[in-house]
């Protein structure tokens, strides 16, 4: 059963419904503005991940995985209603009408009133979450939800992750009623988890990849089985500098790796952004603190997911100024990683003289 997060009507072809959506977005943004008027430095903002996907693609499986193994983070997941999520009761420490508290510090929160108020309430808790996830069931316009969330200054968008069902994607895209919804969910994605890769077969997976490439050329695509993927891929958090994780044995075995770049030399802003905007497809995410040539008095926060990147000024340096960038890649060979690191090295001030 799909339920609806308000403010994201599923029938975007109807002008009146779109007007209602746009209107509710404005009202929601107004609520968010009122609840959170102060500016927040990017490093203090709580990352937000939107999980979208059509019915049956595996969103619930993914959410349960994240809640069961959050990798040391306090995750708050916002859902339409608890019935759809089915959290393992062994993990539950306490319940109220709208919140389920897990023993590991995570929270599952049912939408209470408006999304803007639910998010504001979450961030006002004394035990503020490290990460917020919105499980956007049946939503045709993920960007509308993201935008409403971003009106809250305490949040920053970490990524829009869409789950696609490799078995049924072609059928859904061929259906004139379903296509607009499914296409929009994929087009809005930074990362597409092509799920049920084991059940779909090689041909279906290849065809699905082709369709996704057409709809979202710069989204990163990861084939998954039972939505098994490291939390960092979905949430974009964690500062482990090197890790290796593998998915379940399957025709498509994923090897996730991370690599890091460090430098004491200031990096040229424009060059850095050019590199970040043009990373190889195997690099899913990158994140870091940057010593930027444009302003060496403060840290800059770099965030990259799929095709999106931003380099934002943060607070003044407290320790020795240096850049530390970590990237997560899937099925990447070492040569490609070395290439990225070399390109980053050439961003150092003074590097152009040699290069």
């Amino acid at each position, binding site marked *: *059963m799909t*339920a609806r997060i*308000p403010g994201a009507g599923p029938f975007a072809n109807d*002008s009146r419904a779109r007007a209602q959506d*746009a*209107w509710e977005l404005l*009202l929601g943004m107004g609520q968010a*503005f009122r609840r959170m008027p102060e500016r927040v430095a990017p490093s203090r903002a709580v990352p937000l991940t939107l999980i979208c996907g059509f019915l049956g693609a595996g969103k619930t499986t993914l959410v349960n995985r994240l809640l069961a193994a959050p990798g040391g983070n306090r995750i708050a997941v916002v859902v339409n209603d608890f019935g759809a999520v089915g959290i393992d009761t062994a993990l539950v420490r306490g319940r109220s009408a709208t919140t389920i508290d897990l023993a590991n510090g995570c929270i599952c929160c049912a939408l209470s009133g408006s999304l803007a108020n639910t998010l504001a309430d979450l961030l006002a808790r004394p035990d503020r979450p490290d990460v917020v996830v919105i499980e956007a069931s049946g939503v045709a316009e993920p960007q509308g939800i993201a935008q409403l969330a971003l009106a809250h200054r305490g949040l920053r968008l970490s990524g829009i992750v869409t789950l696609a069902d490799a078995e049924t994607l072609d059928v859904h895209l061929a259906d004139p009623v379903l296509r607009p919804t499914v296409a929009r969910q994929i087009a809005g994605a930074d990362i597409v988890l092509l799920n049920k890769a084991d059940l779909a077969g090689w041909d279906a997976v290849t065809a699905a990849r082709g369709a996704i490439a057409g709809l979202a050329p710069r989204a990163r695509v990861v084939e998954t089985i039972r939505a098994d993927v490291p939390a960092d891929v979905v949430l974009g958090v964690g500062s482990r500098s090197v890790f290796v994780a593998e998915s379940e044995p399957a025709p498509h075995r994923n090897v996730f790796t991370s690599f890091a770049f460090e430098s004491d030399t200031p990096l040229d*802003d424009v060059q850095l952004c050019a590199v970040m905007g043009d990373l190889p497809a195997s690099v899913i995410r990158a994140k870091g603190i940057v010593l930027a040539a444009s302003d060496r008095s403060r840290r800059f926060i770099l965030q990259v997911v799929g095709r*999106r990147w931003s380099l934002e000024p943060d607070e003044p340096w407290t320790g020795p100024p240096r850049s530390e960038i970590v990237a997560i890649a899937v099925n990447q060979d070492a040569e490609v990683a070395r290439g990225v690191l070399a390109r980053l090295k050439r961003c150092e001030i003074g590097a152009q003289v040699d290069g």
Partner: protein
Amino acid sequence: MDTRAAPASPITVFRARRVVTMDPARPVVEAVAVMDGRILSVGTLASMKPWLDRYPYEIDDTFADRVILPGFIDPHTHFGMSGSFLNLNYIGPIESPGPGGMNPALLTREEVMDALRRLDAAMPDADRPLFAWGFDPAIQGGHFDRDELDRISPTRPIWIISYAPHFVYTNSAMIERLGATDQINIHGVDRYPDGRLNGRFIEMAAIQYALDPFREEVMRPDRNVEALWMLGGTAKRAGVTATADLAFGFTDFEQEWREHERAVRDPAYPLRMTLIPMESAIHKAHGAGSARFVKSLVSRSDDKLRFHGIKFINDGSYPAMSLMVRFPGYLDGGNGLRGDVPWDELADRMFPYWESGIQIHAHANGDETIDAVLAALASLQERKPRFDHRYTIEHYCISTPEQARRLKALGGVASVNNYFVHYRSQIHSEQAFGPDRSEATARLGSLEREGVVFALHSDFSLVVVPLHPLTAVWVAVNRIAADGETVMAPGERIGVERAMRAITIDAAHILRLDRDLGSLEVGKFADFAILDEDPFEVEPTRIRDIAIWGTVLAGVKQPA
């Protein structure tokens, strides 16, 4: 016999072509006499002789060719929550409610540019930014860019947000206000081929960056008070003299109170306002002391601005397709959203208010939700039986005749948003819950048959329908769908008289104001709606087209 003191000012006798009193005793008369803001007598100059012989009076023939009715009452609006957005200048491709009534649809780029030019010309302060929304690049000629918007104004900052996806378009003056330079490093801050910023903010991070001027505008301290004045004008143009805000205190109770005091208690403000606090906000702030706090609010009330009741929200909304329905749910197999309070805890949460005699307004759009609020009412009656409690089901969009019967048996009443029958029901038939429920949206006929008191409201402006009670009457009587011809569930139509009661005396009843408002009878406030024609006399299909001169509030004329 003692003689009384003379009234503060002369009696005014308003004469009109017709005076429709909504009092069944004397439904149509020729004149209404007003003393000290209240109705002294209705009838003719001759019938009023016992008064007019004793006290000085003047005759006011301003309405000699018009029709006087009791001031219309919309018992469920949201001026506070939506007002500050309504004057954001809608420039979209469909008709939409705005401060002046319905904004026309703008179908071409030309029309949009004309509208923007007019808006720019109409703003007295040359530095104030112009904000607009609802733009649809797919229908209205593609994306804006900075150079094009500079042609509207090279000096006034302009900020436009589109329909989904919600891009932001700005001109040079707004780019400058943002502090954005060509060197900015945020993905999605768009550029011309030569590298110059083109005024478009098209990706998440860019849009988040571009929200600041909008945020500042929305948070401007006087904005809410300005909005209340603007909406007072909107109400006046619709013949409305009293309304109730059904979500008071949703952000900051005392701040909202100060804003309302400033606006509504000004003698020139043309509307009586009832404030109904939102229970979820009160509960968050006051916990176990909530009912006591709400009861104490009566000390702040007067005839123009008052507190009354408490509001519970129990499901989503009709247009957002988030209301809760019974078997078989929506066409896609899904269902809507509940409110904050779990339904099985609703009666417990309501009881402190019920016990204190505070009237409960329970929002319920779908029939499954109506079951829940009826169950809560039954439970309250079991614990402590009450008469004349006026437990009101708000919206009542999707219901059954059996529910109307139970509502009657439990002593409850209904406040119905019936505008949707015209504006939304056909779309919902095809895309939300199918024909059976959609066609029978707003079952006023069933409520009438069961003898339930009901009012009509617009929810202005949380949903995209106008604040215009004559339109609600037109919908109630005709039930014509958006296509202009289909009659939706004809058996649920009601007569003109019952529909007119629902925007006057019965609406006053819902708000517990019928002692003083809702009909033209001696002793009630002299609040009138002044129309060019009588809704009882015109072709029923023309009721919503009747021109409205304005209103009279406590005997003072308020031309539209």
